[in-house]
């Protein structure tokens, strides 16, 4: 048993860390957030050149053939830099669905383009009424002329503003919340019949709501089996939750480090406020919250990598822990920075906002706790 990273993983981690340090300062990040596209096409090319976009893909498509640990290593560093570029949306969601469920033809057509940076993807899964239930899909897919017609609405599509291709979940049979009857379709983002409204979220990402009206897709653009899409979505979302937790861990580390540093330098009553025991104990609590979250992240990653049966339980546990620990960490970071923590100028609030969005993505703590309870106690 060991918790060491391989030499390759250390190199990967250091490569992302070096990039964040040298080329992705907070000011740079804020400049990108304020730009029209909310991401940097130039830096995305750099990601491709450095090989990061290839990490989870199979070697036969030019991928790195990485494991959950490799993805974790990258995401943790991206979290530290509050990176806005759509790694989750393009590589892990859009790419993940293709890798796990796409036909050989779709994989051959798209995965190399994801890897070389020329394809930006998005996964349109959420609907206004669906909240955290992945099976709650009202968008319909009707068989017609040897292909399908899609009708419905998708909301808060990550990278929906910039993606050139989408994978959309739609109901090809059954009732709105049935587990059976969900299918996934790949289509160009500018396909006829798609109306797009883009907007920004508090964490800086540019997302989109999509209205689909009689959008045509070919039968060959079905991702996975017809009506069997939910299992594929769930398999990708479990890994995405793990990846998001790694990003969150990077954020928590930054918040704790910055807060600790601030309390060592900020003086009130003629001493550094970090000398007050009441504050010291709270920083010990946030430190422990970070370590516990890291442990559950490792546990979830090991369960995933070894394909253990309790992987789902471990990921639910991780999301619950992350929710509680995240709130503690960003809450204390803002509070201990006092008035400064409330300014838009300082990075603390921006780390907090990203952590908040991560916590609600693919289910908040309460949602995962209910799932955990159902698995363990019923």
């Amino acid at each position: 048993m060991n918790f060491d990273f391989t030499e390759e993983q250390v190199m990967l981690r250091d490569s992302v860390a070096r990039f964040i340090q040298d080329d992705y300062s907070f000011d740079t990040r804020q400049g990108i957030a304020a730009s029209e596209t909310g991401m940097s096409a130039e830096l995305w090319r750099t990601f491709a050149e450095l090989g990061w976009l290839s990490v989870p893909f199979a070697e036969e498509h030019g991928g790195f053939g990485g494991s959950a640990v490799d993805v974790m290593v990258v995401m943790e560093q991206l979290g530290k830099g509050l990176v806005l570029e759509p790694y989750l949306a393009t590589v892990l969601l859009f790419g993940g669905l293709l890798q796990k469920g796409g036909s050989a033809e779709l994989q051959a057509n798209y995965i190399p383009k994801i890897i070389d940076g020329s394809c930006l993807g998005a996964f349109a899964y959420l609907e206004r009424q669906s909240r955290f239930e992945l099976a709650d899909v009202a968008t319909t897919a009707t068989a017609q002329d040897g292909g399908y017609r899609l009708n419905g609405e998708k909301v808060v599509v990550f990278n929906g503003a910039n993606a050139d291709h989408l994978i959309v979940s739609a109901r090809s049979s059954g009732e709105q919340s049935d587990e059976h009857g969900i299918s996934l379709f790949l289509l160009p983002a500018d396909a006829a019949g798609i109306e797009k409204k883009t907007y920004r979220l508090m964490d800086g990402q540019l997302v989109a709501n999509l209205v689909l009206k009689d959008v045509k897709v070919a039968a060959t653009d079905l991702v996975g089996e017809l009506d069997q899409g939910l299992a594929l979505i769930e398999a990708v979302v479990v890994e995405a939750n793990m990846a998001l937790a790694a990003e969150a861990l990077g954020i928590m580390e930054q918040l704790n480090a910055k807060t600790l540093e601030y309390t060592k330098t900020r003086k009130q009553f003629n001493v550094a406020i970090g000398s007050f025991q009441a504050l010291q104990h709270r920083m010990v609590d946030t430190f422990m919250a970070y370590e516990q979250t890291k442990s559950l992240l490792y546990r979830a990653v090991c369960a995933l990598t070894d394909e253990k049966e309790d992987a789902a339980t471990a990921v639910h546990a991780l999301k619950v822990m992350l929710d509680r620990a995240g709130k503690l960490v960003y809450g204390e970071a803002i509070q201990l920075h006092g008035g400064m923590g409330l300014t838009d100028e300082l990075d603390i609030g921006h780390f907090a906002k990203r952590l908040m969005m991560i916590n609600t993505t693919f289910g908040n703590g309460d949602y995962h706790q209910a799932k955990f309870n159902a698995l363990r106690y019923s």
Partner: protein
Amino acid sequence: MDTSFTPEELAFRDEVRTFLSESYDAELQARLASGDPKVYKQAVIDWQKRLHEKGWIAPNWPVEYGGTGWDATRQFIYDSERAAAGVRDVVPFGLKMVGPVIYTFGTQEQKDRFLPSILASDEWWCQGYSEPGSGSDLASLKTRAVLDGDEYVVTGAKIWTTYAQFADWIFCLVRTSNEGKKQQGISFLLIDMKSPGIKVNPIVSIDNHHSLNEVEFNEVRVPVANRIGEQDKGWTYAKALLAHERTSIAGVADTKRNLAQVRDFAKREVNAGKSLLAEPGFQARMSDIEIELMALEFTELRVLAAVASGGAPGAESSLLKIKGTELQQAVQSLAMEVAAYYQGVLPNDLSAEELGHDFGSKARQSFMYGRAATVYGGSNEIQKNIIAKAVLGL
């Protein structure tokens, strides 16, 4: 012990309800919700003028200065009804902060000059307490006022000054002496914001909004006649004010209303075909808050009753401030949970209709700005120090 209302009090409650529903009309509410600062400011002033005409602008002031003369019960009824109706509280800086200081410690000339315009909302006040280097350790403030004939010359900077950009006047704590304890060399000045040498620098806060500012003073000349009470005794006056401020920060009535609103949102929100409000986990989260709030409502009543029978709010106001702000944040946090993905929505891009969601953006703004409540008015850590010292004798 009896907390039931008399027939007269019930009649008063009905009168409050009727007045608020008629006067806080849709046109006014639309202007208050405006993103245009000028429209917003004028709407606030218009609403306060309506309250003034009704004679209800200053429930906490003595009758002789233009207050209502309400007892604790009537003050409680008024505030509960106000909050339940979703009616905003008055801007505190003039009416709840400097007004009481002026009528308690000011000269007759100061009372005549300032109190009428505070009551009529003809002059907007802001508060100059915190400084970049003096937050929790307020008494370490360094903005200095040097006597020159019958004027003080003020130089320094104040920070976190809410709505300084709207203000006609600022009440300031300034250092007039470096002798003795740091609390002893502080004076309380009323400064005209139009004075040469004042510069207001905006600070955008984490709710993406501009309400906070830094106010710079560069050799600003202030008549000695604008000093409250004695020179170097300002800390005493400021402390009296802080207790009032803390009591009003608790905001129990508004939190009750906000919790009721979250409950309505949760009822509408559906997860797996079931109302979120019907989820046992959510119910437990909600009732944890509601139970604390039920207790705090009575704690506040106990403090109000004690104040009404002659006491000044003391260390109890620290308890109200801590618990009140914790509960405000708990409710704001719950609203974010209900909003789920939509908690991230910013106000500018899409309308609620286009977005398909109507409370995420508001929840986000309240939650983000709400983080300030445990910092301002003396951080909650400082309040705990006060209770430890003043109540527990530690």
